[in-house]
């Protein structure tokens, strides 16, 4: 009991400590110097209408690569942690209701398509590789729930995951060779502003990210849903 109140007291003190962040900080009056540059020059330099995308894919591209790596590591880690012992039995196939099954079979291609749409239009509209990847992943989750394919083809996923990652890194290196630096998206022509095929390599990179993220997320979920024993 005492411990409970002690914790509350401690949290009170902690909250008190954080108070200056609320009381002493005023919101931005104008854009920060960095943001000003992104907003002012970004569209011209990179040709992306979605400034967040240009920041994510190019200006802070290394973050994004790292982020992909984080997800990759997490997927590997989860898979690693929940690995099955060598001679595990085959997972029991669960039967889902017929409606869900047929619904899923019908829905899945649409979901997949939507995901692809999102990452291809990342430089134009909200959303991008991550969001697209998530959508793809949720489509596959649907499949899982429906039990259409309890055993997702590991090999295909593997190939997608590995290759998209490797190509992403390779594109980054191309940036050094063809443009100004690692992960520079200006290896492809900027194209016409606002078009689908514009903004240099951003759509391409976003696609790769989408594929990789999707594959990774599926990996995580797959590892989670697989039955032990």
């Amino acid at each position, binding site marked *: 009991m005492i411990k409970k109140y002690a914790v509350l007291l401690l949290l009170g003190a902690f909250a008190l400590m954080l108070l200056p962040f609320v009381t002493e900080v005023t919101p*931005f009056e104008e854009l920060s110097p960095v943001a000003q540059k992104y907003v002012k020059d970004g569209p011209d330099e990179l040709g992306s209408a979605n*400034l967040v995308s240009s*920041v994510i894919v190019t200006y802070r591209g290394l973050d994004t690569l790292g982020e992909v790596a984080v997800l990759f590591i997490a997927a590997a880690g989860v898979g690693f*942690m929940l690995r099955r012992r060598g001679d595990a039995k085959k997972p029991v196939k669960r039967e889902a209701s017929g409606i869900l099954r047929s619904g899923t079979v019908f829905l899945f291609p649409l979901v997949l398509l939507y995901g692809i749409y999102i990452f291809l239009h990342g430089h134009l509209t909200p959303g991008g590789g991550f969001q697209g990847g998530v959508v793809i992943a949720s489509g596959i989750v649907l499949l899982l729930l429906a039990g259409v394919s309890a055993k997702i083809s590991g090999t295909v996923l593997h190939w997608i995951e590995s290759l998209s990652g490797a190509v992403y890194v390779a594109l980054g290196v191309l940036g050094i060779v063809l443009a100004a630096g690692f992960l520079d998206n200006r290896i492809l022509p900027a194209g016409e502003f606002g078009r689908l095929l514009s903004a240099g390599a951003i759509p391409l990179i976003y696609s790769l990210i989408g594929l990789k993220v999707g594959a990774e997320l599926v990996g995580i979920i797959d590892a989670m849903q697989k039955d032990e024993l």
Partner: protein
Amino acid sequence: MTLITILGFILIVIGIWGMLSQSNIIKIIIGFSIVDTGIHLVMVSIGYLKDRTAPILDETVGKAEALARVVDPVPSALVLTAIVIGLAVTALMLAYAVKLHEMKGSLDIHDLKELKW
């Protein structure tokens, strides 16, 4: 949007409260994800400028007026990354939880005292 900043911090404190007071590992992870949400809110609210729109240029917001019309894209970009990382960490924590439960048969953090002193 100071209000949202405050909300973010409140969520953070509540999340930590959960982490400190709940003995169930899953609850601790939930607390952690609430903290995460709180942080993301704080971050995005920092990038907000009053009465501005999203940093996406289109017909309504042209290149020229963008500077005065859009909010800061940087915090958004950061939060995007943070969210994904949060998911990664949460997933790994859950994997730990599953594994711990498998080996220990319990989700109580007080039971994980094999090592001390």
